[in-house]
């Protein structure tokens, strides 16, 4: 069958029944009650602190074939996932479903090795960047395709029972012996634990892992003792340098600065850019530069944003400190400044990832967002976005909240250079469709700005940009420019084997990734 973005999909992939993406107005209603595996306490009172990981794993009753989860807020500095999987392997437990919020590029130990030795045989996440992702698209032997979901879809999958977690392992930079914990304090602070809130309230067993036990009660309480079965102290939960030691610096790449400046100009030209506006800019090089330019525009206009959303950076915190944005709603903290800022300021708020992006909630913060700035690996002439796979089909990134932000924001802006090295980023058809073009309003490149005539707010944006004297070009012009520099790329050849199922935020399938054919 063919879904609404023209992708050919089978009706079933193993036991997975494919619900094809049906278009922006066709979101499937969720009518069933919210599921939770949480049970009343089974532990002996006052005895949550376990001597080591193995003891906690055994106490949880982890068995072959079960599902385990983690958050990815320690990014590439994570030392928890490796320790837990090693302990599980040593206990001889096999064929687990590994369901973190995302897999970042963790190399030591290698997640691929845990697949090869049979500890893991299924994976679900928002992304599987790095060695694991490359192995998957090359046909790594798993018992079912990897399911990739954007941030907003993961809590929904947990609440519907599609992703049912047996044991959630939650890394925290500080915890008391009852499991009240946070990521905001301690030597390895990672900031918001927003991705784990849903795991804590839904999993059958919850284990908090920390290297910093603090006297009861741990303050602030990000995740409450109400949900925590066991607490384990380990020597080290992360590498602070790789977690994000300092504030990310402003890029010096003039191309990125140009794109960032144009993006901020597009925002400032909008009639929605007024006192009380809201934005999400993100943490890439272009995003950080864009935030700085947006701060300048905001200051010049003499206005204040009502809130910034999603992943926080030092320069968004700086905007808040200057009075340019009233509230920061943090589902993730991208650097040490952002990680620690929440502890000191009541207007910098740690939020549940589900509150951020789950479209099936009674509301989510994205529903009110004015401007969303997104990165992408590829965009095509239908404005479809690929944020997963590179020019050779390799797994370059994760879905993150991109599809959620594009859909939720009044004006979604994709920032992308038209070429990277010798590879075009504007193409005729993206290799993997992650975000439907109908939800993308504007594309900003170094070679020009293109508006999507099919976006719901096209007329408003067009009028505002014309009023501000900002020129636009058709996206076909960007494609032509890119191809004139690089030539037309050969399509990536694949086998019929489906390695990944790419879900959209409404739980439908927007695309699949097939195994890359190698010479």
């Amino acid at each position: 069958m063919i879904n609404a973005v023209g992708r050919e999909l089978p009706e079933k992939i193993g036991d997975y029944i494919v619900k094809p993406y049906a278009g922006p107005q066709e979101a499937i209603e969720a009518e069933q009650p919210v599921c939770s595996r949480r049970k009343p306490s089974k532990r002996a009172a006052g005895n949550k602190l376990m001597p080591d990981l193995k003891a906690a794993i055994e106490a949880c009753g982890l068995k072959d074939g079960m599902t385990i989860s983690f958050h990815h807020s320690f990014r590439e500095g994570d030392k928890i996932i490796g320790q837990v999987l090693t302990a599980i392997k040593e206990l001889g437990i096999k064929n687990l479903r590994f369901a973190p919020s995302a897999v970042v590029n963790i190399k030591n130990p290698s997640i691929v090795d845990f697949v090869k030795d049979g500890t893991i045989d299924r994976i679900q996440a928002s992304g599987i960047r790095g060695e694991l992702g490359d192995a998957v698209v090359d046909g790594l032997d798993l018992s079912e395709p990897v399911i990739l979901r954007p941030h907003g879809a993961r809590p929904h999958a947990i609440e519907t029972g599609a992703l049912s977690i047996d044991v959630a392992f939650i890394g925290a930079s500080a915890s008391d012996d009852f499991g009240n914990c946070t990521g905001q304090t301690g030597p390895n602070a990672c900031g918001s634990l927003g991705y784990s809130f849903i795991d804590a309230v839904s999993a059958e067993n919850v284990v908090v892992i920390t290297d910093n036990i603090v006297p009861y009660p741990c303050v602030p309480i990000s995740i409450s003792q109400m949900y925590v079965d066991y607490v384990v102290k380990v020597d080290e939960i992360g590498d602070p340098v790789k977690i994000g030691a300092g504030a990310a610096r402003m890029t010096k790449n003039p191309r990125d600065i140009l794109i960032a400046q144009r993006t901020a100009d597009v925002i400032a030209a909008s009639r929605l850019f007024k006192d009380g506006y809201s934005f999400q800019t993100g943490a890439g090089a272009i995003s950080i530069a864009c935030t700085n330019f947006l701060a300048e525009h905001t200051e010049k206009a003499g206005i204040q944003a009502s809130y910034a959303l999603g992943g926080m950076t030092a320069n968004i915190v700086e905007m808040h400190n200057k009075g340019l944005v009233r509230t920061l709603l943090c589902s993730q903290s991208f650097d040490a400044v952002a990680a620690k800022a929440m502890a000191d300021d009541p207007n910098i708020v740690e939020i549940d990832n589900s509150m951020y992006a789950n479209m099936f909630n009674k509301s989510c913060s994205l529903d009110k967002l004015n401007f969303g700035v997104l990165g992408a690996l590829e965009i095509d002439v239908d404005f479809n976005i690929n944020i997963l796979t590179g020019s050779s089909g390799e797994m370059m990134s994760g879905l993150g909240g991109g599809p959620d932000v594009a859909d939720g924001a009044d004006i979604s802006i994709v920032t992308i250079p038209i070429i990277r090295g010798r590879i075009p980023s504007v193409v005729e058809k993206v290799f993997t469709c992650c975000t439907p073009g109908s939800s993308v309003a504007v594309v900003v490149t170094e070679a020009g700005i293109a508006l999507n005539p099919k976006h719901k707010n096209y007329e408003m944006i067009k009028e505002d940009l014309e009023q501000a004297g900002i020129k636009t070009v058709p996206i076909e012009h960007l494609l032509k420019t890119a191809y004139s520099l690089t030539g037309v790329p050969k399509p990536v050849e694949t086998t019929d084997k489906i390695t990944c199922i790419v879900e959209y935020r409404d739980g439908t399938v927007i695309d699949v990734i097939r195994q890359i054919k190698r010479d």
Partner: protein
Amino acid sequence: MQTAKLKRTSLYASGANAINMIQAAFYNEDCLVYDLEDSVPTSEKDSARLLVYNTVRYHRPADKYVLIRVNGIYSEYIDEDLEAAVRARPDAIRIPKVEYPEEAARICQRITEIETAAGMEVGKIEVWCNIESYLGLINAYEIATADPRIVALALGAEDYTASMKSHRTKAGAEIFYARNALLTACRHAGVEAIDAVFSDINDIEGLKEDTALTRNLGFDGKTCVHPRQIDIVNSFFTPSPKEIKYALRVLEAVEQGKLQKKGAVTLDGSMIDKPMELRARTTLAQAEAAGIKIGGDQL
């Protein structure tokens, strides 16, 4: 010889760096200078020449004034540089370190020979001369008038101050005379004057002060050392409403003269010559580039 194309900002793109050359086309500079000289290591001179030739000949940006800066007049590369540069058909060739009018005339003559041999329109390629020493400055007027191809002189402050044994400062007192002397020569010769770079790419306020001086002295444009300087420099070359109105009146008078088949046209008692017309067109082009809508009640 002068064109009405804007020359507010010139950005160099090294011929040794393909990515740099590709990206340079996307910034807002008026003039893009593909460089074969200082930014290209000796070992890369041949490949850079080939790359620049192909870029300008087959992939030149449509909306920019394109130049090629060749190696020095007495360098071993100049003959091959000119062969490639002329055949690439840029808007202009930029000659470094010109000190005597004979040097400029000889290069212009060589360009003519290559144009003729290649069956190109003779005289179409313009020439900019970089003035980068006290000798060049002393001879600036003679250099500017050495050949009709020469449409601009550009001040190179680093080499100039070295030749003067001056110390380079941000405030630029050591080049104040050179700026004025170059401008005087250019104005007398009827060519455009391009100011030197402001080297500190992280000092935005310093750039603004320096460019304000550039503009107030009367320069037509400024060379930029980094893309992030371009928009700032461009912004200083935005004409005032008074200048725009005067330019519109000049062009209106020229049009009326053509309709009435008059040989000479006057405005407010003064005769309008070709440079005045070109200046008026440049003023309107600058206004348009700055996003000013021309026409209607306001202008």
